[in-house]
């Protein structure tokens, strides 16, 4: 006889998931249609049917640290075919959101980016920190002459402070990721075959090729949108790294004809397109997406603003706009928002999903 586990129904957690997902998740009748139509559910103990009943009982322990919710790429097939319209895709997304918060240290960080009430504080922190840095450097004023952002925020200082702050945030996050790994191992122990070596390259291949998106029937443009964002982002990071090198080697700012500059603007275009598709889908494909929540919009809007402000900052420099430094300041706040808060927002999936995929493939779960 198997060990009997005591069930602690958690109504508060259930309601939280219900609120975050906009799903009447209690109306699930456990038919298993979701697991059946899912193109990613593994043959053994497939998802998301079992997650739905756990959510229905608010079984937090079984949901946080669950590897399967990360195998889901939220294509929405389960939701569009759900006979009770309980939106399993959104429920899994809500569980993921609770996961970012759960592993966030300090906890306040998790709260900061998940609760709209905390939004002013979340904005205030980068504003105050940037003002503090600039005040200490003594450059917190609008410089005279042609637009030169380094006159406002010297490149060396920018690179130094922003890099170290990012590093600090990511260090905090890595502690959470470590606990996440342990939790996954406890909840989904490796089977008889045991753990394999970390299949880093194959997982990287999965991520780059977006192969997990291909089986989806309900959200065909989803793959393209995610690819545009993903590679747009990757390009921007590459361009940014090149730009940092350029500031060190002193041929910054780059002329508009510099291949990297062109690449950067192309990346922006890719992100605009991808975002456009995503926003359009969230607005007009409710059957699949249900009600998009705060975290969804926070992510989309902050990425949008980051990219937009970046484009404007560039135009302002070339066009000698009077609001150039205001835009630049705004852009820096946006960078903070997206990059530093990253592990604690929905964008944290970059880390969590990668980790979960690595774990899943290590124990042979596919």
């Amino acid at each position: 006889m198997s060990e009997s586990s005591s069930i602690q129904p958690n109504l508060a957690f259930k309601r939280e998931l219900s609120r975050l997902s906009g799903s009447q998740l209690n109306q699930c009748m456990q038919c298993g249609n979701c697991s059946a139509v899912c193109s990613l559910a593994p043959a053994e103990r497939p998802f998301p049917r079992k997650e739905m009943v756990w959510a229905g009982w608010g079984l937090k322990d079984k949901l946080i640290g669950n590897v399967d919710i990360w195998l889901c790429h939220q294509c929405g097939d389960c939701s569009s075919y759900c006979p009770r319209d309980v939106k399993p895709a959104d429920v899994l997304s809500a569980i993921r959101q609770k996961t970012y918060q759960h592993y966030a240290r300090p906890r306040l960080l998790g709260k900061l980016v998940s609760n709209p009430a905390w939004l002013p504080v979340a904005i205030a922190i980068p504003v105050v920190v940037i003002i503090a840095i600039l005040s200490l450097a003594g450059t917190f004023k609008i410089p005279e002459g042609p637009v030169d952002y380094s006159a406002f925020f010297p490149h060396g200082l920018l690179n130094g402070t922003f890099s170290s702050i990012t590093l600090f945030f990511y260090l905090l996050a890595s502690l959470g990721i470590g606990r996440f790994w342990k939790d996954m191992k406890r909840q989904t122990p490796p089977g008889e075959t045991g753990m394999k070596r970390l299949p880093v390259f194959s997982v990287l291949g999965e991520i780059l090729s977006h192969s997990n998106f291909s089986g989806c029937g309900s959200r065909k443009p989803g793959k393209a949108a995610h690819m545009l964002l993903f590679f747009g982002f990757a390009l921007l990071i590459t361009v940014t790294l090149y730009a940092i090198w350029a500031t060190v080697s002193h041929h910054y700012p780059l002329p508009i004809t510099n291949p990297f500059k062109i690449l950067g603007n192309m990346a922006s275009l890719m992100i605009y397109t991808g975002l456009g598709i995503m926003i359009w889908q969230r607005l007009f494909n409710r059957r699949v997406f249900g009600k998009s929540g705060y975290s969804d919009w926070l992510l989309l809007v902050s990425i949008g603003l980051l990219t937009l402000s970046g484009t404007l900052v560039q135009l302002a420099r070339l066009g000698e706009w009077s609001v150039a430094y205001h835009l630049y300041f705004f852009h820096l706040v946006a960078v903070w928002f997206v990059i530093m808060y990253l592990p604690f927002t929905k964008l944290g999936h970059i880390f969590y999903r990668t980790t979960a995929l690595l774990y899943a493939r290590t124990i042979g779960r596919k």
Partner: protein
Amino acid sequence: MNLPTLIIGGGISGITAAVELAEAGGQVVLIEKENYLGGNVSRFNNYFPKLCPPACGLEINYQRIRSNPRISFYTGAEVKNIYGVDGDFRVKIHLKARLINNNCTSCGKCAEVCPEERPAKLGRTTGEKAAYINNGLAFPMKYCIDPDACAGEACGKCLEVCDYDAIQLDALSAEVVIQAGKVIVATGWILYDAAKIENYRYREEPDVVTNQEFERMLAACTREHKKLTRPSDGKVPARIAFIQCAGSRDMNHLPYCSAVCCSVSLKHALTLETEYPEIDSEIFYIDMRLSGRNEKLLKQAEGKERITLTKGKVGRILPPDGEKGVLLEVEDIISETKRQDAYDMVVLAMGLTPAPVAAELKVNEYGFYLPDQPSGMIPTASCKRPMDVSSSVKDATASALKAMRR
């Protein structure tokens, strides 16, 4: 003077209401839109829970109709409109042109010489002629001609052989007005359109059939003493899947439960088990819903080696992998495994919907008649809510009493 009660629909419920009422002394006019009485059940293979032939009870009821002078009936008749009030309705009825009249002796010569065939449909005897009779136990026992399949006077072969002046290829439709005191509406059910469940590929895969089609296939096999074969290539299937809640309990289709399909699929599986021992069945369900004594169908099925019951709604049907047949995708919830399995045939346990409205009555959002209607109008049985034969007969009997209200 008491006017007769008009009963719309000559299926098992309408027939029951008619005989029950007439035997209690009431005058009854029964109308049926098809050419034969019996409705859906007359094409069934068997009833649950006893797996007995519907023809048995129908025969008794037909005998009750034959011997009762208070019942008159029209076949090929449809209601055009109803006006009037309780106690004094006038119902206009359209009588389809019957190309064979009452002189028909059912000798069958017309069918013998008829060169045209009705298009093959599942459950329809292949090679059925344009001049045909439902089956050896049809009522009324008269041939009729399918105007869509008949070549008309140009052919005229049946005219030559009929010794009884029974064939009138140029017959016209007619209209009659019937005065009635009460109206019982027993128009019954039709299946939900299986093609609307796109992920079950009903339209694309010949080996995906509805349970009604399957029932008729089984009935044809019983009648003609032949093996059950699958539509695509005529092979005897080795493995048949039954998909429960095809359309029912589904917000995308019919939110309600169709109440009979679990019993029907178990009946099918048990019939296969006894009559076609070379065939394995597997039933995929969400909840097994059997009420009262019908629970024993489930008990019986659980004990059979050739019947598998799997909890899990089938997500989708995929085209076959080379061979004929189809693939199903489903989570077996009890063993928590997701399967992609091949079957030779799939039977969709389709949801029930009300037959098209025959009278302007109050309906719910799915088109089923509400129990409360203008005085004198009495909806009964499966046009009120999905129900099985026994409940329908029960309700029809109760409705007959309502028609006797003073």
